[in-house]
């Protein structure tokens, strides 16, 4: 059997793939955080809850409304995005003129309320969501078994990340967003409806989280606390990548997933902490993050 540094190739590749999948989730979530932080300057602590809502919308949609996975892939982010826009319009906008710390506290509170409410109804143990039929099974690649669904998650996440990057960096709408991030008052003076842009941006950012939630539903137990567990790591990823950089969020997310996967192969005890070690290193050497701009 082929060995890589004393580890069988199949095990090595398997962990690498798992790491990459985790990385795809980190990328999607930190991307949404970066988009929101860019324009609203708010660290969105409700992001994990939005991811969880995406998964729950998928689960409950199937259970009560007969909505299948493919429809949920579109409808759940739409639903959560609309919900996010209401939060922005009626809660965040009211405190937008205050210190950004208040936005952080408010979104943290929203996350706790959402989690608590769902725990009340569904408990914490979590429910399973079936893998969609078309994506059951897998491919035998010769050196490892590649489950179809995991391959799909990876591709879907990367496609959505690239789409988001393209929208923001290469379109006119994205130019509004980047310019609005720099100087919202001047954008208003050009006739751009900045408050609306902010509402839509927040909606889009949390819709990305909800999309990740839909992707996660067949992989992990759907439980009210699934978001907060993940969010801590995602914040570490964001710190490593640097707040506000779109491409930085995506690349850092995938890389950190891979590093986590590799650590699982060679020193499993450190797998859960390796990202935080990297975070400390980055904070010491480059406090603005790998892709962040020095203030």
């Amino acid at each position, binding site marked *: 059997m082929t060995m890589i540094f004393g580890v069988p190739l199949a095990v090595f590749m398997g962990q690498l793939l798992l790491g990459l999948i985790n990385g795809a989730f980190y990328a999607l979530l930190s991307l949404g955080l970066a988009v929101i932080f860019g324009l609203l300057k708010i660290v969105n602590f409700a992001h994990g809850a939005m991811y969880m809502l995406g998964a729950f919308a998928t689960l409950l949609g199937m259970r009560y409304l007969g909505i299948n996975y493919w429809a949920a892939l579109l409808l759940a982010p739409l639903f959560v995005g609309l919900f996010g826009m209401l939060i922005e319009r009626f809660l965040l906008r009211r405190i937008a003129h205050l210190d950004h710390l208040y936005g952080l506290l408010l979104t943290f509170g929203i996350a706790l309320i959402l989690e608590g409410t769902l725990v009340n109804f569904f408990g914490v143990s979590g429910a399973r969501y079936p893998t969609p039929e078309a994506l059951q099974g897998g491919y035998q690649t010769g050196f490892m078994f590649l489950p179809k669904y995991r391959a799909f998650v990876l591709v879907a996440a990367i496609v959505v990340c690239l789409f988001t990057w393209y929208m923001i960096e290469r379109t006119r709408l994205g130019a*509004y967003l980047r*310019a609005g991030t720099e100087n919202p008052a*001047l954008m208003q003076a*050009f*006739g751009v409806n900045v408050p*609306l842009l902010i509402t839509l*941006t927040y909606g889009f950012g949390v819709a990305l989280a909800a999309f990740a939630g839909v992707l996660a539903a067949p992989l992990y137990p759907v439980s009210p606390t699934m978001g907060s567990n993940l969010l801590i790591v995602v914040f570490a990823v964001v710190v490593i990548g640097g707040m506000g950089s779109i491409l930085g969020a995506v690349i850092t997310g995938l890389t950190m997933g891979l590093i986590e996967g590799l650590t699982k192969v060679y020193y499993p005890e450190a797998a859960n902490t390796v990202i935080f070690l990297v975070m400390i290193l980055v904070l010491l050497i480059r406090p603005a993050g790998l892709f962040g701009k020095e203030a």
Partner: protein
Amino acid sequence: MNQPAESPVEYQDRDGAEMLRVSDLHAFYGESHILHGVDFNVKRGELVTLLGRNGAGRSTTLKAIMNMVGRRTGSIMINGNETLGMPAHRIPRLGIGYCPEERGIFASLDVEENLLLPPTVRSGGMSIDEIYEMFPNLYERRRSQGTRLSGGEQQMLAMARILRTGARMLLLDEITEGLAPVIVQKLGQVLIKLKERGMTIVLVEQNFRFAAPLADRHFVMDHGLIVEEISAAELPSKRDHLHSLLGV
């Protein structure tokens, strides 16, 4: 994330009529009271200046017109439309282009993106080709990051981008500040061309020598008020008086 379909603003076009009338305008930044009842008007096709010492309230007057300050009272009529209760993003759609003192070039956008950024507010703006003809430097540097340009080029860019939008009235804040004489001269030529095209221009200016030959009327501000109005015809006889007002 498209711009909303704005309901068409009630708009009246009356030739020769007033483009702008500011009456008893007070403006506040938080607790500080900056403008104390500013009164002036600008006719269509006119070029007027707001002169005065630093802190007299000239830039604040432009910002107040754009609804970029805190609280305002009084009246600001643009083309016969009261704008005091209008949200900031609706005001440019009355045909106003604003060029801020700090120029406001976006670092995250290249030159052409900066140029194309402000949405079209009315038809009849200059085409991108016309703009590049007027400012050839911008064409050569169109792929550069906006803030990598020289000060003069940034000023050209800040002006050029509001010419594309179809704005009929330009509010220009200290466009010659800190620029080399040859560039100041070029800006003067641009203003003359814009005036020939029928643009209405309000110029906040420190450089009186630049403004004097261009303007139809001058308004002198002090302590948040218009203290003197001087027409181009009166200027030669009032030059000494004006210099004492401006402290130059």
